């Protein structure tokens, strides 16, 4: 679909603003509900994530001692702003991206990393020991999955010969079988990398509640916590959209969008329910020993295939 949306509308309603917030919350609900069902629980009601956000927003915001208040308040806003900006460059719900330029793939990926960096900074900003430890783990984890994740998303870009998301999307729509056939490793690494990015189990060591309470966000309450929470939900949605666009043959219309992203979410939910939490050293070891090398091998294979003219 090719609809032109006025820039202001794109920023505030679709795909940048309200749309992504609400759909992000809905996806969080789907994720929680699926895991609950897999674990033989009932799970939350459909409005639970929204109710959580409304409740946290209404809570008193406490600025703890020993923090820089400006940074403490600005970081959640920066995180959410970065994620919402990233939403403008992805083909959300099958629409053309609102903004597009050559190289927007790289910009989008960096915008998506902003939230992790903001959470890490928010952790080291406070003097709470759980926060500092959580921030250390968040940033350690960032360095482990970021490179493989980037390399994995690079695969389709190399094949399509473009760094522009809309170009890659158009290419993927025509060649989805070829992409899945030639780069299954990229697909898996990207999906698991997204789980690492979102700190979902088994990569939830940075916020392992039985060890360090809530990790970097321990000191946050009220608005700051809510903004981080919403930002993470939005990141989930954007990440799923990107992967569906690149590896599952693009997204042509809203129904395709729903089917593909929810299918990916189901796989992610199963993976989340299947494993015990990895220690941070195990996470780093796994990513650098297997994730990065596999992703590099994949890129190598793609470059060779492209140079001999198969792709």
């Amino acid at each position: 679909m090719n609809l032109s949306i006025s820039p202001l509308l794109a920023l505030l309603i679709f795909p940048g603003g309200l749309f992504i917030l609400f759909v992000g919350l809905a996806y969080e609900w789907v994720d929680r509900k699926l895991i609950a069902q897999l674990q033989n629980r009932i799970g939350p009601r459909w409005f639970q994530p929204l109710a959580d956000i409304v409740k946290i927003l209404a809570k008193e915001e406490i600025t703890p001692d020993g923090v820089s208040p400006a940074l403490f308040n600005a970081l959640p806003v920066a995180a959410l702003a970065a994620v919402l900006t990233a939403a403008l460059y992805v083909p959300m719900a099958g629409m053309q991206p609102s903004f597009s330029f050559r190289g927007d793939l790289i910009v989008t990926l960096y915008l998506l990393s902003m939230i992790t960096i903001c959470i890490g900074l928010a952790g080291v900003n406070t003097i709470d020991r759980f926060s500092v430890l959580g921030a250390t783990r968040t940033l350690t984890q960032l360095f482990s999955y970021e490179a493989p994740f980037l390399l994995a998303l690079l695969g389709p870009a190399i094949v399509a010969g473009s760094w522009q998301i809309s170009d890659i999307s158009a290419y993927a729509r025509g060649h989805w079988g070829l992409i899945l056939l030639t780069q299954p490793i990229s697909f898996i690494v990207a999906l698991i990398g997204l789980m690492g990015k979102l700190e979902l189990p088994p990569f939830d060591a940075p916020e392992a509640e039985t060890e360090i309470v809530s990790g970097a966000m321990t000191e946050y309450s009220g608005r700051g916590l809510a903004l981080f929470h919403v930002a993470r939900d939005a990141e989930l949605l954007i990440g799923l959209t990107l992967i569906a666009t690149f590896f599952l043959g693009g997204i042509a219309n809203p129904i395709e969008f729903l089917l593909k992203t929810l299918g990916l979410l189901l796989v992610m939910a199963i993976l989340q329910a299947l494993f015990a939490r990895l220690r941070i050293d195990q996470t780093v070891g796994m990513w650098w020993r297997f994730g990065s090398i596999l992703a590099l091998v994949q890129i190598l294979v793609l470059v060779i295939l492209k140079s001999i003219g198969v792709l």
Partner: protein
Amino acid sequence: MANQTKTEKFIIPIGPQHPALKEPGHFEFTVDGEIVTGATARLGYVHRGIEKGCEERNYIQDLYLLERICGICSHVHATAYALGVEKLANVTVTPRAQAIRQVVAELERIHSHMLWLGVAAHEAGFETLFMYSWRDRETVMDLLEGLTGNRVHYSANVLGGVKCDITPEQRDAILRGLDYLDERMQYYMNVVTSDETFLGRTRGVGVLTYEQAETLGSVGPTARASGVTRDIRLESPYLVYSEFPVKVILDDGCDLLARFVVRIKELFESSRVIRLIVDNLPAGELTVRMPRRIPENEAVSRVEAPRGELFYYLKSNGTDMPERIKVRTPSICNWSSVVVTAIGHKLADIPMILAGIDPCFSCSDRSVQICSASGGVSKIWTWEQLRQYGIEYYR
């Protein structure tokens, strides 16, 4: 002085309130990055003055008070106490009552170990195993409820016997429940010994060698997972453990994995013994008459709780109230092993190591000593004074 020059110590406090702890306790772990270099434990947040309370109540009331020391292994406390009082009063309980006590005790062991399996899985971030094991634990909770009428504090014991019988219908229900549980336990055994991510968190973690376990006086599954043969059910059989003996489960893995394996194997063993007893239940009365006043004497009673040896010392003075009751719970014997094994491990392993001994905080917090810091006089308080002190303290 060496300690004072190291001012850069980074201490992670766990507790008194912490998501990893289900009960209040305080631990300070000195960490170097993620590696733990020192550990201290401080207990005493849930002292309830139960031992003192027992001295101001009669023997029958004490049975119910002592049962409330622990919400998980309530039956063994009541059993240990009842066995002690019966010894003081020179009363022999009928074999049928003994057998029923043992059935409830072993069912309770199943419930306790399954609860532990869930908690330990939760500490490892393995929520699915947590949810599954607690769902299946409902089966044994239902059996206990059907047998005694209660889910937590069963109150199956009375002084001189038991209050509930096992009817043929209940026997069938128990056998059906155990069939289901056996199947599930086999499943958990497979998960625990074959799931790679879980093995990564348990294999080689929290190693407590045979020598350490002996020196530190570890008890129960914690000791048995280090190869120490220590089980009161075999060493000094009580109830009908001599007629229906259990096999001691040993493992020389010494690590967390061994503690998982030992506890799950004990589930099979408990299930086997329960089947044996309910199929060969001795005939006889449920209770015998107990005197109200117990002649002056003292007695020691030891039973094997799910967590290890439970020790009761009772002193009577000829009235209907005991002179002194001293309880030593298994958790208190195992605490030192945590402090020793934690050092050198990663911080992420600490909740697992803590959970590995199956700690029960409120079990540990019973003794209290009021001494002034300057080494002043220790004083003996009455129950009323102690109560008043508590009220004033928390005002």
